[in-house]
């Protein structure tokens, strides 16, 4: 349904060019869920915005049902923008504070359905019911500041679904929501997705959220603008084949004191993410990677290759047919050997 062919996006800054997304190739099938995991600055939001048509790639192509979206004009472009909707991370910033919920939901309806005022109110009410804001009369005339974060994100979701999109980009939709409410929003999104069959790119920095939401789908991991691992969610989250994914998994604190304190630590060779202006040569993770092999990982840029059940961009794992566990001696050697 959506196909990315060596998509890159560079941003010019005063100090040089930042390659936010660097030659990403990816396919997302009809109705599929793909979780995109990465830390801030990894390029995951830029990738999501390119798919939603909000920014264009510097190089490479994005195909939607076979058509290059960069070549769409006029009605075809409008149809694409309708078919692919986005839910942003911050429901405090993505809803206009001077508009009521009705006005927020009416704008896309008016644009795409040309409906009259009476119909708009009825449709807005049914949208609110679908996102479990009930009774709708209690919400439809409210302003965003009168709603909680979770309720606002539901309005944002209702707005995205109002035009019956075929694909949804959800950019960290729960990360700004109170912890006690996140799962109910994820469950709502999962239910609406299965009801409508809408495909979904679900962007998150949280492996646990990816595991929960994307259990039946695939997960892709980004680091410094590149995809480093892609595969079925269970395989990627539970048996990662790329050192970066494995480092993320080892770093996640768990809400279970005995479990989380008993885990073997993984010490990276360098605690800090490289500057986006000076992405390392070869594998961009090599200066931090405990598996790094000199004159291999710092020279050759790895591509995604099939390893076990997934694909990973690691030269060492590819050569060994899978990423081995770090022995105690290797963990020891890695301790404190980083520059700072």
């Amino acid at each position, binding site marked *: 349904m959506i196909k990315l062919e060596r998509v890159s996006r560079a941003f010019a800054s005063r100090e040089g060019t930042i390659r936010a997304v660097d030659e990403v190739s990816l396919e997302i099938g009809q109705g599929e869920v793909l979780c995109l995991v990465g830390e801030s600055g990894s390029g995951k939001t830029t990738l999501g915005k390119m798919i939603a048509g909000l920014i264009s790639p510097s190089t490479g192509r994005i195909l939607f049902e076979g058509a290059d979206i960069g070549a769409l004009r006029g009605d075809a472009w409008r149809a694409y923008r309708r078919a692919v909707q986005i839910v942003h991370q911050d429901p405090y910033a993505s809803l206009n504070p001077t508009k009521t919920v009705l006005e927020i939901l009416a704008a896309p309806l008016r644009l795409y359905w040309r409906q009259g005022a009476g119909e708009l109110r009825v449709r807005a009410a049914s949208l609110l019911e679908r996102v479990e804001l009930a009774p709708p009369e209690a919400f439809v005339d409210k302003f965003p500041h009168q709603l909680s974060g979770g309720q606002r994100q539901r309005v944002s979701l209702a707005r995205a679904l109002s035009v019956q999109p075929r694909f949804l980009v959800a950019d960290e939709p729960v990360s700004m929501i109170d*912890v006690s409410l996140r799962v109910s929003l994820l469950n709502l999104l999962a239910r609406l997705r299965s009801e409508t069959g809408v495909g979904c790119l679900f962007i998150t920095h949280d492996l646990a959220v990816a*595991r929960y939401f994307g259990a039946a789908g695939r997960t892709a991991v980004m680091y410094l603008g590149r995809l480093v691992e892609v595969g079925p969610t269970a395989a990627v989250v539970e048996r990662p084949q790329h050192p970066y994914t494995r480092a993320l998994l080892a770093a996640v604190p768990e809400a279970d004191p005995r479990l989380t304190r008993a885990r073997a630590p993984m010490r990276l060779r360098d605690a800090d*993410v490289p500057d986006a202006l000076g992405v390392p040569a070869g594998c961009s993770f090599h200066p931090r990677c405990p598996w790094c092999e000199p004159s291999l990982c710092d020279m050759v840029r790895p591509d995604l290759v099939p390893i076990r059940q997934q694909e990973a961009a690691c030269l060492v794992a590819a050569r060994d047919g899978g990423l081995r566990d770090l022995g105690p001696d290797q963990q020891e050697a890695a301790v404190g050997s980083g520059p700072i």
Partner: protein
Amino acid sequence: MEAGQILYRVDREVSDVLTQTPEDLRRMRGGQVAMVFQNALSAMNPVLRIWSHFQDTGRAHGMNDEAIRERAADLLRRVRLDPSRVLRAYPHELSGGMRQRVVLALALLPRPRVLILDEPTTALDLLTQRTIIDLLRALRRDLGFALLFISHDLALAAELADRVATMYAGRVVEIGNVEDLFYRPRHPYTAGLLAAAPRVRGDLAGVRSIPGSPPDLLRLPAGCPFHPRCAYMQPDCDDAEPDLFEAGDGQRSACFYWHRVRPVARDATA
């Protein structure tokens, strides 16, 4: 402050923070009790080098430049930073994780006995957060200060805490030893929070949100402020606000029905 006391004991002398003279308070801040905030960048002066920050803090607590330089270098090495490079740098030249480690070292310069950390890793990436957690554990072991760690993330409490207090609507609703609180929560809000976060290991069944919305502090419900969201709610829960009751060995809960609260079953501990 409307009422109450905050008692602070140095050796055998007990003082009330709220009635101290400005001069005593000035000495206590930083020297006895230091605080690190969420955003390290706004905690530093953007036009001063890191060395000047250490110098100002040290001098304010009666250290000479030589002692400051020596202790700053030691602390920076402990937080895995290179003193010769970092002390010359301006705040904007460091990454977010490096800045947070600088602020941590800076807070420890006057040898405080209590360190208050307010969401110190919330703005940081996962791998950087892991570095800070591991460093905090080592620093506390080596330097022996007490830590008040403020967080919305239960997992960080599970990593670091000896004891945990849960707050809701401005009140402590449960306090206890870390294992008691995580494996035998005695307040429905704590039990609900524990069930609300998906995990990367173990079973995904049993994960569920707490119903309702976070409390509106201008319109708090009568009685127990958590009762409209509570799975254990009884008809009399809106009558009176519960005290913090004894609910086991050193564990206290602000719930009339604390003995009924059960942890939500998950096999993550298996």
